């Protein structure tokens, strides 16, 4: 797992150093990197050219949470789940309805979103995760469609196609989180928490077992792994992450409607994960941020934008099967190789290779 930890990008304020065996220098490097990352994240919203960009940054943060969640089931456990928008929608509607209709505080809505999506994840996971491959994918698409239809048609409760208006801003007691800027820090806190949780699990038995199930479910079972149980657990956790993201989204935008929770949204999440690099935490973050901003960068192209967007995503997927993180890793190992042939080199390949990250994609279409 060391290989996966290593690339946790410095821009994420990597969550604390591991208690590595005696390496004091390494601990200091971690601390310095963490401090630099934290400083960067704190000033980042001030660097955004406008309030719309800041809004995008907030969206990116929410997507990071959701994609980290999707990674548990799709990236680690290798189960193709195409119903993620349902969990994201459930979290959003749970909190939006409880706060608008019943006057619950934001924190109550958030807790309800977490509990509800978690339970829903277990209830959906137990029957569907007996299926494999395409059948699982189909079943999850079906479940998500059912959820969407309920949101559209159960008008007295969900408001139907009109959605839920005037979702209150987030608040903790007297502390109101109303502006994009204050939301940024709330989302940042949750995204870091989500990342920390995923990072803990990655280094643990749980993370290893999920990856073992992906590589060979039969072998994992023969090694004493109750695979269905672990898959359901991963699915529920995945749902909880999506629920948190959905709840934050509802309170950030103040208005939600069923359109936001269809299959398109699932495709966006899956694309973020695969493009960034499924299985890698840094990949989740990169994919979510990149795909949130990519459409904006391509906006200058006007009518051609969707075409270019589609083609660039396609090209990235075809030529970067390991995602952006896979490319970075290749670049790093190539550099290491090159450096190991020149014994005097002292530069850190990790810091520099970040410059190798691909830009918005081929502009020559």
């Amino acid at each position, binding site marked *: 797992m060391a290989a996966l930890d290593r690339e946790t990008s410095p821009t994420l304020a990597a969550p604390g150093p591991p208690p590595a065996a005696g390496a004091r220098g390494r601990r200091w490097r971690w601390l310095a990197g963490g401090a630099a990352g934290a400083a960067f994240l704190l000033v980042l919203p001030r660097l955004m050219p406008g309030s719309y960009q800041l809004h995008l940054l907030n969206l990116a943060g929410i997507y990071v949470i959701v994609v980290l969640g999707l990674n548990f089931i799709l990236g680690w456990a290798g189960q193709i789940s195409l119903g993620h928008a349902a969990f994201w929608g459930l979290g959003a509607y749970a909190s939006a309805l409880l706060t608008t209709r019943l006057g619950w505080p934001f924190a109550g809505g958030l807790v309800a979103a977490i509990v509800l999506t978690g339970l829903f994840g277990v209830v959906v996971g137990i029957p569907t995760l007996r299926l494999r491959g395409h059948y699982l994918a189909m079943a999850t698409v079906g479940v998500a469609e059912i959820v969407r239809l309920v949101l559209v048609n159960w008008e007295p409760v969900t408001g139907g196609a009109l959605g839920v208006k005037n979702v209150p801003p987030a608040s903790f007691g007297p502390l109101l989180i109303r502006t994009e800027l204050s939301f940024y820090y709330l989302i940042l806190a949750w995204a870091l928490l989500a990342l920390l949780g995923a990072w803990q699990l990655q280094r643990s038995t749980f993370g290893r077992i999920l990856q073992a199930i992906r590589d060979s479910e039969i072998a994992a079972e023969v*090694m004493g792994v109750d695979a269905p149980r672990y898959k359901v657990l991963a699915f529920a956790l995945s749902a909880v992450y999506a629920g948190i993201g959905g709840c934050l989204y509802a309170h950030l935008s103040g208005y939600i409607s069923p359109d936001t929770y269809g299959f398109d949204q699932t495709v966006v999440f899956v694309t973020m994960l695969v493009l960034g690099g499924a299985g890698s935490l840094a990949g989740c973050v990169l994919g979510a941020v990149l795909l949130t901003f990519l459409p904006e960068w391509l906006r200058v192209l006007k009518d051609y934008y969707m075409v270019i967007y589609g083609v660039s995503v396609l090209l990235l997927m075809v030529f970067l099967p390991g995602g952006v993180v896979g490319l970075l890793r290749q670049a790093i190992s190539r550099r290491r190789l090159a450096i190991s042939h020149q014994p005097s080199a002292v530069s850190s390949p990790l810091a520099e290779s970040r410059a190798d990250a691909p830009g918005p994609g081929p502009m020559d279409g």
Partner: protein
Amino acid sequence: MAESYLLETRELTMRFGGLLAVDALDLRVAAGTIHAVIGPNGAGKSTLINLLSGIYRPTRGAIVLDGRDVAGRRPYEITRLGLSRTFQNIRLFHALSVVENVMVAEHFRAGITFLDALLGTPRARRGEARLRERARAALQFVGLAERADLPAAHLAYGQQRLLEIARALATEPRLLLLDEPAAGMNRREAADLMERLRAIRDQGITVLLVEHNMRLVMGVSDQVTVLDFGRKIAEGPPSAVQRDPRVVEAYLGQEARHA
């Protein structure tokens, strides 16, 4: 019962459509022995291993492991009851390192809950450290200690087979099923394997060995069962089985008769 049998199958039968892959098989494996199962291709050896390890559910019959009928139980339950196996077509966890492959195998003895893992509690950390330590010991035993941190996919073929054995041993089985462990090994590796199998038996682990390499089978086994078309056609110590005319016929068929 004069001898104590660790594993006993009674009328064990597996039918795939019209094919009887294992046909009313009564097999007895004595504790503390190396027991080989041989037979021509399609004799039902791999099906037998899949039945014993719970991957297939038998059509009929009982599988008694240490006095308990385990037929129809899930693989992970059977593993926890003390039976472990390797795979003929190697099934490692490629994305994990060598030592992590072994750590997966013994996780259920560490007692780390999901919450422990998520919160990184002291119990989780202690458990992880113990897992890693024991995994390294298992790797030491098969001679892969130096490769512990390589990705499993980077191992040479013969080493991958050894990792399969280390992983199976890490579940602390009383009965170890080895499905063609010497396939693809050269003569020296196979000779090393023979030594290791004896060492495994001497630790008190019973070994059920399915293998095509006759030099290995005859050199290491205490007892040999010969299958053909899912039925037992001969059984006994290696020297007796080797001379059994039914065995010669099953292996060489028509040619043997003409010879």
